[in-house]
């Protein structure tokens, strides 16, 4: 069978590309600086980096500007760019215990090693849309800036030098529960190589490392939806969810120096980390103990890390009984789902024509049978 090529539309495609570019570049408002995107839309930048699986704040800002704020399109741009880059190395395994926190709360427990450090959070803030004028906001910004620079350094550090400075890497609740013998010990004695989802698509039954990587790169909304469905939805059993740790902080990335053989810190990335404590009540489970699920993702994205931690433990307890694992591995990637959806917009003239022809053929056959 020969290939029938059809051409056309090339000029229209080029014109559409030019139109997008021209209107983006020539809009009336002033040029959107990368720094503005990085600072003022920081959470969006974090989300895009997480879903792209690439920590590159400046590139993410550029991608968001080019995509005119379409987060999924920005993820697509970053992934496409990443696919052109060589991979130089694997980092030394970073220990999650070494995250230096900027925010740390333990919803499950009041008195914990280290402290409850709210950090930059709107969790307890009433959602009032600020409608003050821009002039007033600018005035306030000026005032805050001059206040900040007016306080001498030593005075500020004394303000909280009450002998109980918060720890930067406080002991995690999981450790405390272990000390109380309240948690199932699932620590492994071996050290298997992690599964690399960027090279091989993960299919169930998959190693837990594949599941964790898939969730850390998943679309935030998709993961939240999976979690909600698991809790309340058609395949859910209502289970007790208590969060142990919710942390946002920085972790060093180290690579081995090829000459000296020593680990060298090449970067520091911010991550959100969550422990979800699960109450065990299954007949085949140790009901005197809890189990813990784990979530960790690039940037500040608590919704995603919480969903991930809950789904990690849900998937472990599910043990392949439902389609949860398959659903997580195959349907939560932003680029996979959006890519498949958007391809529907491309011409399907040939396939649809053959569908029409089949309809006519069936009709013809039916008419023939009838007569």
């Amino acid at each position, binding site marked *: 069978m020969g290939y029938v090529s059809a051409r056309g539309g090339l000029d229209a495609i080029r014109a559409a590309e030019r139109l997008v570019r021209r209107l983006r570049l020539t809009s009336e408002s002033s040029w959107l600086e990368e720094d503005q995107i990085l600072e003022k839309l920081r959470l969006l930048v974090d989300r895009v980096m997480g879903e792209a699986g690439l920590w590159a704040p400046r*590139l993410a800002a550029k991608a968001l500007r080019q995509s005119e704020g379409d987060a999924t399109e920005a993820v697509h741009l970053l992934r496409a760019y990443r696919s052109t880059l060589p991979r130089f*190395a694997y980092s030394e395994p*970073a*220990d999650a215990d070494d995250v230096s926190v900027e925010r740390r709360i333990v919803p499950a427990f009041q008195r914990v090693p280290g402290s409850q450090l709210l950090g930059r959070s709107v969790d307890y803030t009433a959602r009032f849309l600020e409608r003050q004028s821009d002039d007033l906001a600018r005035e306030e910004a000026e005032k805050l800036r001059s206040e900040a620079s007016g306080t001498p350094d030593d005075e500020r550090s004394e303000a909280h030098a009450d002998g109980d400075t918060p720890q930067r890497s406080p002991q995690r609740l999981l450790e405390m529960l272990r000390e109380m013998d309240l948690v199932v010990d699932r620590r492994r004695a071996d050290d298997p190589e992690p*599964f690399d989802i960027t090279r091989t698509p993960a299919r169930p039954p998959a190693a837990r490392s594949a599941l964790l990587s898939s969730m850390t790169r998943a679309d935030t909304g998709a993961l939240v939806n999976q979690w909600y469905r698991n809790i309340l939805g058609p395949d859910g059993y209502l289970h007790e969810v208590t969060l142990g740790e919710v942390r946002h902080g920085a972790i060093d990335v180290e690579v081995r120096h090829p000459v000296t053989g020593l680990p060298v810190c090449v970067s520091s990335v911010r991550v959100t980390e969550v422990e979800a404590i699960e109450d065990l009540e299954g007949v085949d489970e140790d009901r005197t103990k809890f189990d813990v699920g784990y979530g960790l993702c690039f940037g500040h994205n608590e919704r995603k890390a919480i969903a991930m931690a809950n789904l990690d433990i849900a998937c472990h307890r599910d043990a392949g009984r439902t389609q949860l694992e398959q659903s997580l591995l195959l349907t939560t990637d932003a680029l996979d789902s959006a890519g498949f959806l958007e391809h529907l917009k491309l011409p399907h003239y040939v396939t649809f024509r053959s569908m029409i022809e089949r309809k006519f053929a069936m009709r013809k056959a039916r008419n023939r049978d009838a007569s």
Partner: protein
Amino acid sequence: MRSRPERLVELGERCLTSETLRSSLVVTQPPACGTVMVQVREPVRRERFYLGEILVTRCEVRLDAERGWAMIDGDEPRAALAAALCDAVSRTTAEEYEPLRLAIDELCRETREHLAAQEQRRWDQIADTRVKFEEFE
């Protein structure tokens, strides 16, 4: 490697003012962007998984017999070249490079201080958000 890029470039340029250094320098791998896959060991099962990749610039040089290597955060070709150069110089022993070695030590010290000060500023900002519980008898 974590010095501010502009300070690295300054120091790299200073190194290049040495005639001897310039004549014995070979850039074996020009600065290029690539990624490093970040491995994390998580606490529940103590198993490793891949968190995602980070963007880095890598560069390698040779200064006489010394190999200099650098990998730095982001797309920073000039700073990566400077860092690789500094890495090679720091391992030399020749008398004439002594001032450069001192300058490199100085930049390392400055970087440590800069990172510590940055960290302190962050802590100062969030210190007040620490919860102090009052307990009722």
